[in-house]
């Protein structure tokens, strides 16, 4: 039982860290620029495709990952300069529509370029198997993901919490006009944050590619999870995104793992078998609704 | 204070590290014009927001027309007979002046429910007749058909007043009605308020001291979130603490 809980905790951590990579960029774009970006998931998808394509071309996962991230960052730059700049000052409805349109364009373009069938991305050969830790086996690749996720999360935290740029970013999220008045190049800051968010998307997409499948539509399901994360954490807060991501990752994983067992112990087998997965799949949404009910601004509101 | 229409007891509110209001005791007697003055940043607007229900206090209570109103929402206070005008003009600029006031009339409990889905409002003569009367009362009778957005600043302020009046309040909260108006418009506004004061109790927040001393029956002074003095205009004029606050502020 302890092994089960330990393994599930690792799984939750891995899932949560990946969600954090996605949510970090989203929450900053959202918080600083007050811009809803539904196409954030599409950046994740396109990033994963870039990584898969580059990895195939270079026959190396790691080179592919680097190239894919660079490609996604470049795409982010182009998008920011051409479209998002126009959107920052528009109402939420316009942002929803324009970025929904981007999803349509991204999905269809990927279909045109790479075809409708999913791409397969394999982890590096050396990481394909399990490793033994404390007497049980755990997939080596998932451990690597956890490692990368932790390093990036730590770097991001230091960057935002300690560096001068991070101070501007935090200031921008808390009060945009004030930051502008202090003579900081907010435009440049926006562009940098957006590009950075795109790169993080590609990193998550590339890392998850070998575990999941690189396919059209992969961005949408994860986008909603990322939104749940930042709503729970509080829009604009990196700390909130980290906490929210870990909460969602853990709750979702443990819910899926433990709920059916718990229900089986209390309900008739038939009811438990149907109710379990249903409840597990809506658990995070229930959690979000509950948190919003008590803290309408999320756990760590960036604006006082 | 048996006949206090509005009574505020020990009202306190903190924003982050700032005590915006500290234990404010305050009352408005039925029939009077009570002016609230104080230097910039003294907490006057915060106070009005608490009275009107836009903000909730940390502690203390508000009583209106003999009933506890601390927990009532803004619209419930309006329905209880408390109307307010805004410091910054806050009318529906895309509507005619008449439509603006008609909307206010329509919101009144005695005008019936607004959950009506079929009959065009345009066919409800009574709403508009009444709205015209209120417009006339504030001297906008000839501007009824004009878009609110096209009215002059002073006229928009008057329209605000008409909308507040249309809710048939017992107490009118006027938040700096003279703000941004020229001397001529100011004079007209003072006249108008004087005229209204015969029918309704008024809580007036104002910077224009001439207007305040001309209109007010009583004056209260708020400084740094504390009510330092309440009294007749002459008493307030003589009050040492008030003088210090004001003069110190201005010098």
């Amino acid at each position: 039982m302890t092994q089960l809980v330990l393994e599930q905790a690792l799984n939750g951590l891995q899932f949560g860290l990946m969600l954090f990579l996605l949510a970090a960029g989203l929450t900053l774009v959202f918080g600083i620029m007050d811009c809803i970006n539904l196409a954030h998931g599409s950046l994740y998808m396109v990033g994963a495709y870039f990584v898969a394509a580059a990895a195939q071309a270079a026959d190396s996962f790691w080179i592919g990952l680097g190239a894919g991230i660079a490609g996604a960052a470049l795409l982010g730059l182009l998008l920011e300069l051409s479209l998002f700049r126009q959107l920052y000052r528009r109402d939420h409805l316009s942002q929803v529509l324009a970025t929904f349109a981007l999803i349509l364009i991204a999905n269809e373009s990927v279909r045109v370029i790479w075809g409708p069938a999913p791409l397969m991305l394999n982890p590096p050969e050396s990481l394909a198997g399990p490793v033994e830790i404390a007497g049980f086996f755990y997939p080596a690749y998932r451990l690597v993901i956890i490692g990368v996720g932790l390093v990036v999360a730590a770097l991001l935290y230091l960057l935002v919490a300690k560096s001068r740029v991070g101070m501007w970013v935090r200031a921008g999220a808390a009060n945009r006009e004030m930051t502008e008045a202090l003579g900081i190049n907010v435009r440049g800051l926006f562009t940098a944050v957006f590009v950075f968010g795109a790169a993080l998307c590609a990193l998550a997409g590339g890392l998850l590619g070998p575990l999941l499948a690189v396919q059209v539509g992969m961005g949408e399901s994860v986008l909603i999870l990322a939104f749940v994360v930042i709503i729970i954490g509080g829009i604009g807060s990196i700390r909130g995104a980290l906490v929210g991501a870990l909460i969602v990752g853990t709750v979702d994983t443990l819910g899926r793992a433990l709920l059916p067992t718990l229900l089986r112990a209390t309900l008739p087998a038939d009811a438990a078998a149907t109710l379990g997965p249903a409840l597990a799949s809506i658990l995070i949404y229930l959690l979000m609704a509950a948190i919003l009910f008590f803290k309408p601004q999320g756990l760590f509101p960036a604006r006082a | 204070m048996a006949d206090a229409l509005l009574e505020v007891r020990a009202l306190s509110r903190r924003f982050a590290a700032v005590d915006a209001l500290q234990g404010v005791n305050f009352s408005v007697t039925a029939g009077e014009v009570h002016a609230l003055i104080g230097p910039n940043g003294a907490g006057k607007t915060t106070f009005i927001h608490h009275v009107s229900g836009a903000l909730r206090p940390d502690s203390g209570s508000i009583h209106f027309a003999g009933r506890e109103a601390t927990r009532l929402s803004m619209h419930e206070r309006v329905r209880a007979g408390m109307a307010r005008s805004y410091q910054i003009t806050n009318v529906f600029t895309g509507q005619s002046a008449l439509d603006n006031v008609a909307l206010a009339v329509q919101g009144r409990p005695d005008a019936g429910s607004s959950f009506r889905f079929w009959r065009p409002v345009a066919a409800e003569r009574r709403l508009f007749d009444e709205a015209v009367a209120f417009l006339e009362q504030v001297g906008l009778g000839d501007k009824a058909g004009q878009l609110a957005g096209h009215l002059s600043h002073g006229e928009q302020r008057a329209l605000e007043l008409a909308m507040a009046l249309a809710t048939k309040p017992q107490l009118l909260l006027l938040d700096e009605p003279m703000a941004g108006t020229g001397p001529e418009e100011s004079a007209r506004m003072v006249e108008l308020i004087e005229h209204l004061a015969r029918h309704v109790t008024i809580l007036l927040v104002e910077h224009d001291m001439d207007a305040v001393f001309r209109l007010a029956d009583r004056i209260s002074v708020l400084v740094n979130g504390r009510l330092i003095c309440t009294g007749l205009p002459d008493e307030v004029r003589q009050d040492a603490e008030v003088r210090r606050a004001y003069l110190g502020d201005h010098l």
Partner: protein
Amino acid sequence: MAFYRPARWQNAAVSVSLAMLIALPELLTALDQSYYTGFATRVLIFALAASSLNLVLGFGGMVSLGHAAFFGIGAYVAAICYDAGIHEGLLVLPLAALVAGLFALLVGAISLRTRGVYFIMITLAFAQMTYYLFISSSAWGGDDGMPIYERMQFAGFSLLADEALYYLALGVLALCMLLFARQAQARFGRTVQAIRENETRMEALGYPVFRYRLVCFALGGAVAGLAGALLANLTGMASPNLLQWTQSGTLLVMVIIGGVGYLWGGLVGAVVLLLLEEFLLAWFEHWHIALGLLLIGIVLFAPRGVAALFGKHHG
């Protein structure tokens, strides 16, 4: 934005369009194109769904990204009714509207406590919850959805023929549009539009803003449920796909193409989008790229939509 006022030539335009729509099935049959009767029914139903969202979004000013939940619930009510042996449309349709409306009342009561993006996201979350609930419930067919093997009747008349269902959809749409048109100029419509413009001012005029918003939200949900029940009878099933958030997005796109807050916005948007889809698709398999570019163009250059031509805001 000001309150909705109909254009002067609206009545004439509506009468002509209605006459054309009444004649349409005959015409299609004469041209041996009766397939398009089913297609036209679909357009009418989506016009109804989009118009119901327009009530919430355009008139009520509430950006909901979960409207498909009510649409889908309406469809499921129709399928569950069929399953339970209730085949009378006079019963099924009001029931669908009622259930969807009550659910919208519940969702609205919680969501309307939040503002701005939080509102958008919490409506989305509720729709996702509903989606996963239906996907996981074996009693309602789970991922398979629920079939309706035989269309309901209406007042005893069979709806088996595509023409019959077409006329029912047309009738329901006409009635709902009449209601929407009336309410827009009645007390309720003016109230919610004023709330859309300035919520605090309305509160300060004594309006219980929350209650009006909630009723508007629930009314929109109820009409969406009506549309869902009709769609389920057209396609012969209630499918969880109807509840997906992309479906909410599609409805939103329809409203925005048509014109937010214009009475005919939802209807025009549904017609334009579905016609584009039906006919562009044969030409250009990847027409979503074109649609996406078109939408971005609308956002950047024509944010008022197509129906802006059909109703003016005075001033």
